[in-house]
């Protein structure tokens, strides 16, 4: 099943506002073996927590099975660092779509904004939707 080409350019609804807490940052840092204390810089890949939220909603919407998705590429471009206390929202849009060997290569961009609506980070993901095996 190929993903519909008309998705390109479509923006999905923003995710629910997410409050960055010391506890959550510590949990994510600990998952990579880091000890994290209040006042330390938030790990650079933290926005993925919001981006996943947005990606899951997108994949549900287009009825793509999560297990057929492999992550192809990810980029983060920061306007400012994230800090505990920030209330963030991710808005995902589909930037590109192409088919290679029966796989869909889906380019997404998620803009992470703060409570005031200011852009904090732009994160782009390439998702590879693997074709079902041909019997």
């Amino acid at each position, binding site marked *: 099943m190929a993903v519909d080409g008309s998705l390109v350019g479509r923006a999905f609804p923003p995710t629910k506002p997410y409050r960055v807490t010391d506890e959550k940052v510590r949990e994510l840092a600990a998952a*990579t*073996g880091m000890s994290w204390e209040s006042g330390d810089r938030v790990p*650079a890949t933290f926005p993925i927590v919001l981006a996943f939220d947005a990606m899951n909603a997108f994949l549900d919407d287009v009825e793509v099975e999560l297990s057929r998705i492999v992550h192809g590429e990810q980029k983060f471009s920061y306007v400012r660092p994230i800090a505990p206390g920030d209330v963030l929202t991710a808005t995902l849009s589909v930037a590109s779509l192409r088919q290679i060997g029966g796989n869909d290569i889906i380019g997404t961009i998620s803009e992470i904004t703060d409570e005031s609506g200011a852009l904090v980070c732009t994160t782009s993901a390439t998702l590879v939707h693997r074709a079902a095996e041909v019997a």
Partner: protein
Amino acid sequence: MSDIVLEVGAELTPKTYPVTRASLVRYAGASGDFNPIHWSDRIATAVGLPGVIAHGMFTMALVARAVSEWTDGAEVVDFGAKFTNPVVVPDDDEGTSVTVNGTVKSVEDGLATIALTVVSGDQKVLGMPKVSVRV
């Protein structure tokens, strides 16, 4: 403290981190990425993967950890990578490991750009990984 001054050509001390099934479970919970290819052999092999693979974002988070350790927590401005080869994580006590190597490519306009080589076993697992930090 950072273990090296960020000057052009500086080779940063390689960092090696363990990756076990337990790491993946923990990262899934912390990040919200519950794709079963990161915890179920049955599903991973059914979609044509060699076995349970690490989240690309987990590998990227380990790279962010290395950068943080090298730079004493410098602000990351840009960070990106392609996930070119999967990190297969066996279901045993040792699991596998990821090693992050870095070389300072440029220092200008208050930004240091570090080119990275990220390997698991003998294989490069990230394509064109690059990070820019504020210095």
